[in-house]
C-alpha cells in the first residue's frame, strides 16, 4: 500500500501541487552544496512524515539514477566536483519531491485539480477534461512502458545479446501497440465517442 494516512496525505492536492511548483522554482535559486543537501533533508523528512518506506522512496528516484550519474560525471569534467554535485542533487531532489506528491495524492485528485486550474484555458480551445485524461493515461502508462522495456531487456539477456537497435525497435513497437490497445479500451468504455 502506498497511500497510508498522514497529514501529508490529507493536504489538498492543490496545495501540494503549489508546493511542488514553488519548491521546484526555489531549488533553482539554491546553488550551494549545503543548501541542496538541506533541501534533500527536507524532502527526506517529508517521506518520513508520510510514513513512506525507504525502499519505496528509492523507487521514485531509481529511474533517473543512471541519468544523474551521467550528468554528475559530465558536470565534474565541465564545472568541477562541488557544482556538479549541486546540479545532480537538484535533479534528485526534484524527482523525489514530485514522487512525494504523487505518492501522497490520489491521481484522481491531482487530475481534478489540474482540470480545474485549466478551466480558464477553455477560451483558447483547450478541453480541460481531455487534458486531465491525457495526463492520467500518461501516469498509468509509465509502469506499463517500464514493463515493456523490462520484457525486451529480459528477452535480450536470454539470448545473450545487448544492442541499442534490438532494444529500441521492440520497445517502440510495443509502445505503439499499447497505444492502440488503450485507444480500443477507451472506445470500449465509451470514452472515445
Amino acid at each position, binding site marked *: *500500500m*502506498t*497511500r497510508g494516512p498522514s497529514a501529508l496525505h490529507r493536504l489538498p492536492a492543490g496545495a501540494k501541487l503549489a508546493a511542488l511548483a514553488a519548491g521546484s522554482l526555489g531549488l533553482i535559486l539554491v546553488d550551494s552544496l549545503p543548501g541542496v543537501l538541506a533541501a534533500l533533508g527536507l524532502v527526506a523528512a517529508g517521506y518520513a512524515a508520510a510514513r513512506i518506506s525507504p525502499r519505496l522512496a528509492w523507487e521514485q528516484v531509481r529511474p533517473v539514477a543512471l541519468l544523474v550519474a551521467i550528468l554528475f560525471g559530465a558536470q565534474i569534467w565541465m564545472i568541477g566536483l562541488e557544482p556538479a554535485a549541486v546540479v545532480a542533487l537538484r535533479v534528485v531532489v526534484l524527482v523525489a519531491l514530485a514522487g512525494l506528491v504523487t505518492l501522497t495524492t*490520489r*491521481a*484522481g485528485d491531482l487530475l481534478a485539480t489540474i482540470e480545474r486550474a485549466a478551466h480558464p484555458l477553455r477560451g483558447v480551445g483547450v478541453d480541460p*477534461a481531455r487534458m486531465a485524461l491525457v495526463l*492520467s*493515461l500518461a*501516469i*498509468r502508462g509509465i*509502469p*506499463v512502458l517500464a*514493463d515493456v522495456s523490462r520484457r525486451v531487456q529480459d528477452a535480450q539477456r536470454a539470448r545473450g545479446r545487448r544492442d541499442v537497435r534490438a532494444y529500441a525497435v521492440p520497445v517502440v513497437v510495443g509502445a505503439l501497440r*499499447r497505444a492502440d*490497445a*488503450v485507444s*480500443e*479500451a*477507451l*472506445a*470500449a*468504455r*465509451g*470514452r472515445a*465517442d
Partner: protein
Amino acid sequence: MSSGIVLDDVHVRLGDRDVLRGVDLRLTEHRIGIVGANGSGKSTLARLLNGLVLPTRGRVSVDGLDTARSGPAVRRRVGFVFTDPDAQILMPTVAEDVEYSLPRTLPRAERARRVAEALTTVGLAEHAEHPAHLLSGGQKQLLALTSVLVTEPRVVVADEPTTLLDLRNTREIAARLLALPQQLVLVSHDLDVVAGTDRVLVVDEGRLVADDEPGPALDHYRRLMS
C-alpha cells in the same frame, strides 16, 4: 425494438484480408461461447458486438441499435473485457479505474458508493487505493471485469479473458463470468470453460462452421483442430 444481438450477412475486410465472411446470427441465449483457431476471426466477431469493429458489409444490431450508427448507445449496453487487462486498465489506482467507467454526471458520493460496492463484490475492496499495476494477473483481470460490470451493461463480451491466467485464476474468472446475470459472449481457447455456456459458435477462416449446443459444437471444433 428487437431484443438480442443480430448479425445480418456480416463481412469484415481488414486490409486485403477477409476476416469474416457472410455471418448471420441471432444471439438470444444467456451464455454464448465462441471458439476458433488463432486468426480465425473470432476476436473480430466479438469486437463487432459493441462496435469496436464495424462491418465492411452487412449489419450488426444490439437490441435494435445499429452498431455503426448508434455506437455510444451500443457500448453502454455491451461491456467488453479484453485478453490483457493491462491494456484495459486506464487509471493509476484500482478505485480510480472502476470510477472512470461511471458517468461524471453522477454525484461524487454516489460514484464512490458504487465503486466501493463493486470492489467489495469481487473481493478487491482492500486494494482500492493500490496502484493497479501492482496487482497480480488474476486481480488485474478481476479489476478489468469490475470496471465493466460497474456500468451495469446488459451484455458482457469477453475476448479470451483467461488466456494470460493460471489455472486457479482461470477458474475464478470463468466462474464469475458464467454466473453473471447479464448475457455473456465468451471467446476462449479453454474448452472446459466454453463447455459451461448454452450455445457455442465455431469460427474457421472467417466463416461460422458450427453453431450448436456445447457438446456437438466442441466435438466439431476438436475434429477441425485434429
